[in-house]
């Protein structure tokens, strides 16, 4: 890696932007977006450290702003501005004049880094809509402090602002879910107390329970190679797909057990809940019941040991819930009976020796350069940004291409050149040409990539492009449902992912994963890609169509992060299995998993 070449490129680009804007009518600062994009790209691949890039951007901003003041002062001398004043709102588009803007004011113009236009914000980590708000707050604080905002800023990182709007940050981590094998309290209920319920071994859908529900052909890979937090017990991830009906004091409903996950951070069920209220005070909104009366549930293992259930902090209403099981069951436990008040117990088979129908995950060596991997993540981002414009986005695509996406991809050519200058992207790499072809397919011009568009786009890109370009209107909203799926993937670039659930809700699809090895720096890369989730994750459904996944929210559970990955486009209801493709720098992992859909009321 040529760090000196990378820094030199960034500085020379800033000079060129300064020179060009000084000579043009647009005024200084017009090139800030390009400088920022390149700065983000070079820091993303580690070619320029964040502090250096921040300093270069800060110097660029100050240089631009004092010159703009000069220009305005000249006009002021002609009578348009009182001499010696520092007018608010005189900011260069996309920049904040240090000490010039009034505290709390937001300069007009294109969004600064970290405050991307709607739909292209820092990659969606955190609930939708909170990203911009949090970034805006950071920016306002920077204005007050007199420093221009920056996506690379040390201040924001020191402030502990993780992915904006995320439900997790080091300060917020309540560090729940203590674990400890074999510490179960005295149990009173034995295995015999839980009947097989309405078991229908092997059948998909809610209402099925009992031993064998996760039998051969329905269970995913259930084990991970690494021990649970060094305790010598293996992690286990078990698809469940069982429905536990409950009725308790005016509240009745169902808790759908999607999967069971046990790691060093504890054991938990991944669940979806549906309930209906019976009491008038609930119906009239005078009182709100707990979603699920967990304290009245009983959980008993095959040895008669009892366990408590508790809602995992951090998993909120927008989440599939995580219900922690305390203490964590010892490795020898083969099944758990889960019984709701006044309901039959359902048996959850924890035998993790079952194998998936799709077999073990397939690992293929990739050997991507850091630059290639970054460009692939940029491509993923471009392919997933369109639906974020809201309903009807497909009709708006041409307009978006002309405006939003063009602004988003301005500077891509500079990014490619900078990565080459940093020796993290070979001039012979085919990826820039594919990126150029992708831009062309999306109708995006002005990206600045000099390579001729390639003809060999990856199948998954073509699949998504075909989806965008399909003329028939969007399919009817898919029915809400939850798929029991669980699989631990091999470690990839130091990151371990375990798939623990899939849902279709409110017209969208989300894949839920547990991750270890992710950083929580909270900074985004160019185009708002999430550098804390540096993987390319795609799903192929049983109909052969590809779906891109991008991180849309997370919370911390012990040493892990529970991630919700939004799928673009949503999965069709008929999906019987998925093939998951996770791409890192060093390798690609593929695994094929059957889905068992449940539709709790």
């Amino acid at each position, binding site marked *: 890696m040529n*760090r*000196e070449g990378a*820094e*030199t490129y*960034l*500085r*020379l680009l*800033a*000079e*060129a932007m*300064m*020179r060009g804007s*000084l000579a043009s009518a647009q005024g200084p600062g017009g090139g800030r977006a390009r400088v920022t994009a390149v700065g983000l790209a070079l820091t993303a691949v580690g070619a320029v450290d964040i502090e250096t890039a921040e*300093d*270069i951007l*800060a*110097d*660029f901003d*100050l*240089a631009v702003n*004092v*010159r703009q*003041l*000069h220009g305005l*002062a*000249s006009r002021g001398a002609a009578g348009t501005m009182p*001499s*010696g*004043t*520092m007018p608010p709102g005189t900011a260069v588009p996309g920049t904040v004049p*240090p*000490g*010039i*803007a*009034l*505290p709390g004011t937001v300069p007009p113009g294109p969004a600064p880094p970290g405050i991307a236009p709607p739909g292209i914000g820092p990659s969606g980590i955190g609930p939708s809509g909170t990203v911009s708000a949090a970034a805006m*707050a950071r920016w306002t*604080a920077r204005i*007050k*402090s*007199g*420093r221009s905002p920056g996506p690379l800023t*040390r*201040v924001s990182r*020191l*402030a*502990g*602002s993780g992915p904006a709007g995320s439900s997790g*940050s*080091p*300060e*917020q981590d*309540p560090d729940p879910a203590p674990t400890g094998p074999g510490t179960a309290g005295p149990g009173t209920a034995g295995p015999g107390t839980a009947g097989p319920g309405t078991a229908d071994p092997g059948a998909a859908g809610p209402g099925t329970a009992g031993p064998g529900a996760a039998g051969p052909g329905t269970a995913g890979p259930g084990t991970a190679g690494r021990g649970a937090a060094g305790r010598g017990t293996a992690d286990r991830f078990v698809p469940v797909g069982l429905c536990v009906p409950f009725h308790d004091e005016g509240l009745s409903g169902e808790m759908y057990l999607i999967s069971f996950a046990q790691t060093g951070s504890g054991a938990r069920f991944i669940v979806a809940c549906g309930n209906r209220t019976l009491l008038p005070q609930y119906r009239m909104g005078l009182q709100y019941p707990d979603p699920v009366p967990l304290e009245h549930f009983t959980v008993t293992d095959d040895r008669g040991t009892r366990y408590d259930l508790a809602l995992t*902090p951090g998993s909120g209403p927008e989440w599939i819930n995580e219900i922690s099981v305390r203490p964590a069951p010892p490795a020898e436990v083969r099944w758990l009976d889960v019984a709701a008040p006044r309901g039959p117990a359902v048996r959850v088979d924890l035998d993790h020796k079952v194998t998936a129908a799709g077999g073990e995950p397939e690992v293929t060596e990739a050997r991507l350069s850091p630059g290639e991997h970054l460009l692939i993540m940029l491509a993923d981002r471009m392919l997933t940004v369109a639906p974020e414009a809201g309903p009807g986005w497909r009709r708006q695509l041409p307009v978006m291409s002309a405006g939003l996406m063009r602004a988003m991809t301005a500077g891509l050519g500079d990014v490619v050149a900078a990565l080459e200058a940093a020796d993290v992207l070979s001039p012979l790499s085919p990826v820039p040409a594919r990126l150029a072809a992708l831009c062309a397919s999306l109708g995006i011009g002005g990206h600045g990539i000099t390579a001729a568009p390639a003809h060999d786009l990856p199948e998954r890109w073509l699949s998504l492009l075909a989806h965008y370009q399909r003329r028939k209107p969007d399919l009817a909203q898919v029915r809400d449902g939850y798929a029991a799926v669980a699989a631990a993937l091999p470690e990839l670039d130091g990151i371990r992912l375990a798939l623990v659930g899939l849902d279709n809700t409110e017209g969208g699809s989300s894949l839920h994963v547990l991750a270890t090895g992710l950083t929580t720096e909270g900074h985004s890369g160019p185009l708002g890609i999430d550098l804390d989730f540096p993987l390319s994750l795609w799903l192929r459904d049983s109909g052969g169509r590809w779906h891109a996944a991008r991180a849309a929210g997370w919370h911390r559970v012990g040493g892990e992060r529970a991630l919700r990955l939004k799928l673009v486009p949503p999965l069709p209801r008929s999906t019987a299995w998925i093939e998951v493709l996770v791409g890192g720098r060093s390798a690609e992992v593929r695994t094929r998993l059957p889905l068992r859909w449940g539709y709790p009321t």
Partner: protein
Amino acid sequence: MTDIPNDPWFGCLAPCEAHVPCGQGRHVVRWEAGAFRLPSHPDPEGELVLAALGGEKARCVEVAEAWGRHTGDLSVLAIGPRGRTDEIALSWDDVDAAAQASGRSPVPTGPPRAALMRLASPSMLTSARVQAQRQRMEQEMARTTQRRNDMLSLLALGYGFQVRLIGQVAEAHASPPDDQLAKVRPALVAAISARLAPVAEEWIGIDPDQVVVSLHRGPGWGSVELTGQGEQRRLLISLPAGWLGRVWAAGLALAGRHLVVAVQRAGWPDARVLALRAPGTEPVPLDVHASQESPAGGGLDVRPGARDAPHWEI
């Protein structure tokens, strides 16, 4: 190869002065022979002691301190002027307004956002961690604010001081040890490119974006070569970092349609330089003479502007 004498870098720079609002009046600050001086404050060190004991620090002294803090600051090269046509006009009122704006609390005084979102009481460890982060953030912001205010004050001194500070910074990094070279070279290359590209355009009409600069190290003045044609045309220039202080800051970059690459005999207003008539040729010695339209001095708001910079003629 042409030997380059090792004279002081500021040999071709005349003294310059500016007025700074200080106390109830305006005081003269002066740059001369590479030093920043305060003629109105005969004992600045004593004033600093008094300020440390609670007295008010004179603005002239503050500016002198700011100058001292930034004589090795590479950011000066990125922010300062690129040439005569790139004058940064900043008044002391502007500086005051910026300082007042940054005087407001840079950090929200309420509880941190994370604390508001926390579900349960934080542990002692978490509180200490948040407090430490908060302190670091405040320190960072204070440093940023001071750096910004410093820079605005130095720019308010006017073009003459700005180019002299650029020269001094470049000279401070002109001969870095080998293990430091990689750290400073990108900023120096960018700084020379920024100032040489418009000069090259004026010299031979080349597009400034086609000027490629590298840092010359070792004996000799460097090299200038023109390659390619059309869009592939490039002017490859290799000059030492000292060129910024010795040549460019003195306003000597272009003299009589020659590109000045080095100073052979420094002096004011007469000097001998090495200059190129065209790319690829050997430099020739030229005797040059400086003239100034309106030397800085007099009036209430004196600052050496770009038009006060000297014009050198053969």
